[in-house]
């Protein structure tokens, strides 16, 4: 008899007008026996009434109080909402049967919660718990849902629930929906269902194959993005080198330390702007010119003070600049401490972007890719379009002729070196967003950067771009099946072998400049 009543109440709950009555009808049952409680919980869960959620939560947490037949919640009558004195009231006690009923009812009620995040979590919970009983509730929830991402998850949960329904037609619906998903969970569900339903094997296999195809695409896209992201980092670190080493032929082992100086400049700018709240969100864009200047000045000082005395002696230059890098690193370590410094990301750089097909992209890495291409464009424009670039190319091609044409070669040397070092500083701004700002920030990049320049071809910016992106993607492609370390080793070996075939890199200079 009671079962029929529950069923009737359940059916009645489908009618919105009857829903409110269902809440008030069912509520007193919570004060009754455990059996009556469980029934009342089921009915409240089926009611889909927003008022039921806080009451059931309170019951679950032991915060729902009763005095005789009246139920009290947060100092008010649970049914009417009228203020009531909680004195002498005691918590409503429940047993395991009621708790089990509560779990299902809460999940169903959360599906209609006003908070989209709660609805999302509920959909996921239902997806995992999957039982055919959830189907009507989910269908109703999907019809009502307005937020697309929540609706997508609810659809998945519905499909998962349909998979365990008794009717094969409903099962097929579930299989079809799951086959359009692109998640490992959906795939696991289908494989599980395949064991239980041999008669549906063919359809399930087709759905799994569809998911596998989509997952492979997603994995490939994410690998490509990670590779491009690593490549953009390498590009930033190597661009400055492509100018100082590639164009001028000066090997600067302190290059990584200029990157590090740029990262610390970002930190200093951020700390300086702490007093000016409206400017603080702009500290990162402001750091870019600041880092360019700091690293550029350091570069100019290094070139004029020391490197200029060692032109034509590359091995000595290498050792000397290594020493300078050591001194810079230790100086920063003493000034700022050896621990990592925190550089904040502005809000527009945080979070992840989800593309169709479930591909996730972290915003800050996306910005670093954009920034690296901007810097490449800037370097290209400076070399190709400005007077300074023209003089620079002239000095590289033939120093003496350039000097006789009235170009002050010493000044051009200093400016070129400062320019390359300044780009390293800008790289430091970008790296501060995705790496730890510590005194040895630069050491990790220096070897890779040289590899990029050598691989791409000395003296070619396009080569640097292709070299950086190629090595980045190659690294990330090898990584999944060889591990991060072996991937690095493999890339080094690949470069060694590559140099066997093309000793001058991918984009070798031709003609006279090649002999420089």
């Amino acid at each position, binding site marked *: 008899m009671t079962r029929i009543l529950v069923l009737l109440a359940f059916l009645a709950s489908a009618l919105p007008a009857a829903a409110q009555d269902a809440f008030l009808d069912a509520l007193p049952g919570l004060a009754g026996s455990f059996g009556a409680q469980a029934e009342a919980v089921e009915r409240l869960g089926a009611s889909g009434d927003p008022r039921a959620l806080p009451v059931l939560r309170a019951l679950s947490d032991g915060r729902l109080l009763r005095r005789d037949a009246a139920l009290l919640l947060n100092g008010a009558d649970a049914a009417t909402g009228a203020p009531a004195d909680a004195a002498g009231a005691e918590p409503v006690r429940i047993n395991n049967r009621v708790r089990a009923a509560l779990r299902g009812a809460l999940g169903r009620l959360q599906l209609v919660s006003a908070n989209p995040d709660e609805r999302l979590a509920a959909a996921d919970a239902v997806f995992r718990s999957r039982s055919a009983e959830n189907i009507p509730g989910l269908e109703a929830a999907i019809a009502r849902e307005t937020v697309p991402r929540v609706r997508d998850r609810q659809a998945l949960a519905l499909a998962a629930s349909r998979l365990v329904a008794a009717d094969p037609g409903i099962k097929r619906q579930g299989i079809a929906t799951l086959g359009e998903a692109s998640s490992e969970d959906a795939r696991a569900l289908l494989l599980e269902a395949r064991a239980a339903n041999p008669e549906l094997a063919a359809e399930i296999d087709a759905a799994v194959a569809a998911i596998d195809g989509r997952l492979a695409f997603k994995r490939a896209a994410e690998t490509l993005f990670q590779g491009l992201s690593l490549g953009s980092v390498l590009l930033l670190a190597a661009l400055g080198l492509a100018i100082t080493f590639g164009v001028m032929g000066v090997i600067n082992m302190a290059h990584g330390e200029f990157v590090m100086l740029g990262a610390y400049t970002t930190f200093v700018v951020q700390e300086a702007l702490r007093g000016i709240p409206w400017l603080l969100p702009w500290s990162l864009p402001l750091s870019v010119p600041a880092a360019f200047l700091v690293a550029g000045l350091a570069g100019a000082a290094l070139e004029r003070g020391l490197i200029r005395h060692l032109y034509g002696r590359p091995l000595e230059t290498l050792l000397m600049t*290594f020493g300078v890098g050591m001194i810079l690193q230790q100086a920063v370590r003493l000034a700022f401490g050896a621990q990592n410094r925190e550089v904040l990301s502005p809000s527009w750089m945080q979070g992840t972007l989800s593309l169709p097909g479930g591909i996730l992209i972290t915003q800050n890495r996306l910005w670093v890719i954009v920034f690296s291409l901007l810097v490449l464009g800037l370097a290209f424009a400076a070399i190709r379009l400005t007077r300074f670039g023209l003089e620079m190319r002239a000095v590289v091609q033939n120093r003496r002729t350039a000097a006789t044409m009235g170009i002050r070669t010493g000044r051009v040397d200093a400016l070129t070196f400062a320019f390359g070092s300044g780009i390293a500083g800008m790289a430091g701004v970008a790296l501060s967003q995705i790496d730890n700002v510590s005194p040895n920030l630069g050491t990790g990049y220096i070897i890779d950067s040289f590899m990029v320049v050598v691989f791409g071809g000395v003296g070619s910016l396009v080569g640097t771009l292709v070299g950086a992106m190629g090595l980045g993607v190659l690294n990330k492609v090898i990584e999944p099946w060889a591990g991060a370390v072996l991937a*690095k080793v493999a890339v080094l070996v690949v470069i060694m072998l590559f140099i066997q075939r093309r000793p001058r890199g991918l984009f070798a200079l031709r003609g006279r400049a090649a002999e420089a």
Partner: protein
Amino acid sequence: MSDLAAPAAPRVPPRLLALGAGAAALGLLALLPLLNLLPAGSALAVSDFTVAVTGKWICYAVLALGIGLAWGQAGILSLGHGAFFALGGYAMGMHLMRLIGPRGVYGHPVLPDFMVFLGYRELPWYWLGFEHLPYAILMAMLVPGLLAFVVGYLSFRSRITGVYFSIITQAMTYALMLAFFRNDMGFGGNNGFTDFKELLGMPLNTRGARAALFYAALLLLGGSLLLCRHLTRTKLGAVLVAVRDAESRVRFLGYSVTAFKLTVFVLSAVLAGLAGALYVPLVGIINPGEFAPTNSIEAVIWVAVGGRASLVGAVLGAFSVNALKTWLTSFAPDLWLFALGGLFVAVTVLLPRGLVGLFQGRTR
């Protein structure tokens, strides 16, 4: 000794002087373990610490000699010699680990502690044979030599010279460092090897063992000095100097530059490997940190400080820079990196011929 510009011009007095000074210095060094036997209060007594540290420096000096041979004589600047040193050290470390036997923490009769910890069932194949000292010493020479051969062959064949070669060797040691940091390589990962017990049945960390290792290192240094000195006097040495100063010209004269460079590079790697093999029992530990590119480049600066054109210079540099390091880090560790960096700058800009150049006077 030969100098940068005019290697052929023999100038007898300085050469004899250097030889005499070198022999005297080695003789003085040989006295150290004996002085260690004197009672602690005695004026000439030398502490255990001094003997251990000096033994370490002698190993460094052999490493420096290897670098000096390749760089000073043949113009090959390797920034990865630390890798050869460390590989030699690992070979000896494997022997020492095998000798621990059942005395490890886990008491396993064969497997070293870290293998028991990582769940190895049996010894990996590349560990077999290391219980024999001659095999370990052979490997300490063979493995660095083979690596140098492969890297050198691939590089010299494609005429990768100068800074390009330096960077490739640096990448090589960097890659090896990353690889040795991994636990599944079977070389103790992060922690490397330590807690050695004995060598040749002689417990380590005793005065006698330290003195024996000290003399072994000194013998190695003297032997390799003589060998290198002999090499530079032969036709091989003359061709090497020619390769250093005008590689293309030598090639056009019909010499196989690749073969000459390869010979000297492999030899210098073997010297580094032997130095590493003696270094490990002296300091009692070997870990992947030895592969760090900084170590290799620091060794290069010893040679630069001493004077790269001269073999004695490399040895002198190794002793003097390490003496400075030990002295400075004892009271102002923060300053050491400034001093080292300053050395790099000062030597290259002001003193390109190193300390030895100071004694040789002007020859240009």
